[in-house]
């Protein structure tokens, strides 16, 4: 799949839910490219900014959109990797800060 196709497909699904792509395309497009890289490497689109374990079961919580997105966007206006943000974040109404990791480290298996 081409990155532009992924962008258009996800946009259609996510925007009505209130999740917008980061309008900084220098962030969004490399992140989408990385999602496709992970799909190729792992077979599923694990969060590009998290260390995947390599099995669907063990990484279920970080398959994009991850289970932490809702709480992160609610609290910080952006998800951990900053692919998905709120409208207010894109409009500059929320300070852009580093979103701390919410995934428990125990989820990283050796």
């Amino acid at each position, binding site marked *: 799949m081409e990155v532009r196709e992924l962008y258009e497909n996800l946009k259609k699904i996510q925007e009505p839910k209130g999740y917008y792509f980061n309008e900084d395309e220098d962030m969004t497009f*490399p992140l989408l490219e990385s999602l496709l890289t992970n799909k190729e490497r792992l077979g599923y689109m694990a969060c*590009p*900014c*998290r260390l995947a374990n390599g099995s669907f079961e063990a990484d279920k919580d970080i398959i994009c959109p991850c289970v932490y997105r809702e709480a992160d966007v609610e609290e910080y206006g952006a998800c951990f990797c*900053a692919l998905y943000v709120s409208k207010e974040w894109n409009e500059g109404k929320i300070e852009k800060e580093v979103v*701390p990791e919410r995934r428990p480290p125990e989820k990283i298996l*050796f």
Partner: protein
Amino acid sequence: MSKDVKVYALSTCIHCKNAKRYLDECGVKYDCTFVDELEGDERRQTIEQIKEHNPAVSFPTIVIGDSVVVGFNKDKINKALED
């Protein structure tokens, strides 16, 4: 002023890429490990090392001398380089 700088990163992570580019722009020399490309014992040991600096094991984890900067934060990187 020359501190040992170690970057623990993921090859797919945008914050890691941006942090590395910033360090490059600052002319800082650093050693980078892409943890997602490691396997077996090497991976296990590296995760243990990261845990000592950053218990959340998130990326990038940047170790600058005695300071640790978690995530890409220019101000914190600058401060750690200056301290």
